[in-house]
């Protein structure tokens, strides 16, 4: 049963998230354009771009970078399937960590000085958001009684009502995870603030197309983290979660367009400060309720 569910989720996520992620990117570009007073490209432009990248002639420095990226993509799809088949949240978080590592190694193996700087920044990005993401998973566990994503369906009230601060923490680091300015240090869609092309400096053609597709999958998965907070045992949950995710994504686009990239020191200290703040308050609350003081 669970294996069947996983296989269905694998195909569902593999195909569904590909289209959904591409569409999200298209929506992002249109809204961004409107915010800047432009009309913007057609909705399907991201697909055209990736199609064109896939058709390009192969250029490579060594055979490794495309291999690492390919492996990272597979792992992102796997973890998405685990997530949407109701699997273990912490395992998903850790698997995404493996994908990030492969992405970093892909940048290093080219020995481009620009890609290496991008890789250093990607490492610092991981360091800034990882505590919040791990702790989100743990608080999810202590609030819902299980690490399994499927447990949300059995809740009487959405998690947001139980651990609202953790949701705020997630929102803060989500900007980094979705590669939005001001925290898009390792590589970004905004050419004006980029150091060559960051992590992807030496990636082109098919490899770059895979990076783009991986980003789509990741966006859908991370918005799934957001949806976790809005799901409970009611059919209304679907609607509420969809609206919440749409609003969050819109908010991220606004943030993306309103802030210039910051230095890594700022990203690290702000992310950690927010994480420390929301988690400590949540811990105090948890300890108080645990010991029955409230």
């Amino acid at each position, binding site marked *: 049963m669970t294996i069947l569910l996983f296989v269905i989720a694998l195909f569902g996520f593999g195909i569904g998230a590909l289209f959904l992620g591409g569409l999200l990117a298209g929506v992002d570009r249109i809204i961004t354009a409107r915010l800047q007073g432009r009309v913007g490209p057609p909705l399907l432009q991201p697909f055209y771009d990736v199609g064109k990248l896939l058709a390009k002639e192969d250029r490579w420095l*060594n055979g*490794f970078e495309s291999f690492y990226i390919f492996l990272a993509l597979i792992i992102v799809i796997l973890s998405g399937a685990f997530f949407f088949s109701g699997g273990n949240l912490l395992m998903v978080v850790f698997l995404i960590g493996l994908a990030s*590592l492969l992405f970093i190694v892909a940048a290093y193996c*080219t020995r481009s000085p620009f890609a290496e*700087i991008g890789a250093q920044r990607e490492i610092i990005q991981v360091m800034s958001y990882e505590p919040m993401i791990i702790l989100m998973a743990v608080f999810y566990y202590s609030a819902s009684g299980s*690490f399994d994503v499927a447990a949300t369906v059995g809740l009487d009230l959405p998690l947001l009502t139980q651990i609202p601060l953790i949701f705020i923490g997630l929102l803060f680091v989500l900007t980094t995870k979705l590669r939005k300015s001001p925290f898009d240090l390792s590589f970004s869609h905004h050419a004006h603030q980029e150091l*060559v092309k960051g992590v992807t400096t030496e990636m082109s053609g098919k490899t770059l197309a895979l990076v783009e597709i991986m980003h789509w999958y990741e966006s859908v998965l991370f918005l799934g983290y957001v949806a976790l907070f809005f799901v409970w045992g009611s059919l209304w949950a679907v609607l509420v979660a969809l609206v919440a995710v749409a609003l969050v994504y819109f908010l991220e686009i606004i943030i993306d367009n309103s802030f210039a990239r910051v230095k890594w020191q700022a990203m690290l200290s702000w992310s950690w400060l927010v994480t420390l703040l929301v*988690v400590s308050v949540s811990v105090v609350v948890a300890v108080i309720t*645990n010991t029955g003081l409230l």
Partner: protein
Amino acid sequence: MLPIVFLILVPLAAALLLALVRDERFRSVVVIAAAVALMFAAGYLATTGLFSPTQFFKVNAEAINYILLVMDLICCGYIVYRGVRHKHSLSVFLAGVQAALLVLFELVVAQDVHTISDIYVDQLSLIMALIIAFIGGGICIYALGYMRDAQSHQKRHVLSHIHGGDPARVAEAAVLGTDRRHLFFAIMFVFLAAMFMIIFSNNLGWLLAGWELTTVCSFILIGYTRTDEATANSFKAVSINLAGGLAFCTALILLASGENPILELDKLIVAGAGGSVVLPIALLAFAGLTKAAQMPFQSWLLGAMVAPTPVSALLHSSTMVKAGVFLLIKLAPTFGWGINGVFVVLVGALTFLYCSAVAISQSNAKRVLAYSTVANLGLIACLAGVGTPEAVWAAIFILIFHAAAKALLFCCVGTAEHRLHSRDIEDMDNLFVRMPRLAMLMALGMIAMFIIPFGMLVSKWAALVSVVDSGHFELLIVLGFGSAMTFVFWAKWLGKVLAIASNQSSLEQSIHKSERFGLGFLAVLLVVTSALLPLISAYVVVPYLSGITQLLPSGYTGVWADVSPQLSMDNLLIMAIVLIALVAVLAIRLPRLAKQGNDSVYLSGVGQDSDERSFTNAFSQTSLASQRNWYMEQIFGEKVLEFRSNLLASVVLGAFLVLALIVEANVL
């Protein structure tokens, strides 16, 4: 019983042979034969004992107590002798007090206390035995090739000294240049014997004897090269470990002179779980923390890396520090929310956070490894302090995987150092091209330390769960931030090692056969133990935890009353499958991927050579692009963090020992 005696006596016999005969071929034969014998004996013991309940044995030989006392006194005497020669008064003092306490304990206090069982075998001691025999044995074999290189390096170094003509330096060079490898290997095997004594002794007096023996062995091995730095660091190590030994000794005297004298480990655990013997357990925990190089005592292990690399590999993976955390894990049922539990949790948590942070700022590969070891030991201590069966489950697995991965990593760094003449991570750029196999093994060791399908991270996952379940919410923050920082220092090192420039020639051929064998053996061990995690959990670790429940008196209702594994078998199996798939894909694909590029690196100018990263700049001159890893010293540097963290740890340590004293006084 016989295999245990075999495990203790074989390394001692091997040590004797190695010390007496200096012939190199003979040495190789003895080392390999002894290592293989240990592996077989440990394996045999495991097949017979791993799946059966704890067995206790009584040894009817009072003489052993006296033999061990004499051995302890010889050890103390040796430290006093070396201390006097090198004018290190602290170690002389500590060794003197130690000797006096040992005599007091053995001949006065414990004279009338009789033990029911002196030796025991349970699943944890068998796990330790396998680690010591296989990883320790593997390291000894690896050391054969390594020490040959080290000796020739030293000889060259000495010759350059003699060319100066200064008589004082010539004399010094003569001392440094003598071939003392026979003693080196002898002490390595004594070390293993001492470890076997520690893990099988139920008699606390015997446990202490093994404990002291590891202190002396580490003292000799750290000072092996006889340089000034090595001597200074060996005295630092011995002073700290003697302080721990004093605490251990004092604890035993208190235990043996109480109303209900206790001289056995199992009785101590039962009494401790019942809430008595607070001060002795605090002292034993202190001893464990010093041996495990926890803050503020981490400096001895960091200094220990002046020793030849196999010594570091041995100290960090299967001996010494592992004895410290072994004791803490043994005592775990007595911890929990009591004074001692909170004490160990705080010190461990502080150590884990501080060392993970400082490791980011280190570019010396061995220092990164050392800080990572101390951090992981901190995590193990922390989990032992939490003291629930789930936390101990995680602690045992971290111990296993840390031992396997660290042994491999140290040996890889040692081999790389002899070829690159540097242990700096920046000099390991392109290692994947220069020594592809070595780089892959090194990469394996690194990802096994912090990436998911490997056992280490699965254990950390279990640690997170156990911490929430036991109500230690504050530790969540420690684990979250600590793990994030762990990612940083491994990822950037891994990146350097896996970078590729095709103009480098291969250095791999110069690696000795024994070194290659040792490295491959350790790597296989690492992957196999990781893949077998679900089985080890179900058939070894969970039965060990249930065994403790049976040990406790029937009225006991604490957390140990009910033991159940917390990570579902499903998830463990998924991890094992992902692991096998990942290792297979990497092992098959990586060596075949290298192909000549058809493009060159972008360098903001007219590129000349991608591999050199040279380009023509705006003035038509040649420039070289270079990129170092970021070490972020202004945030994570030792200078920024060390003093304050050590101060904090010292305050915690002092406060809790005083607290334990007060509680004990009230109880009395």
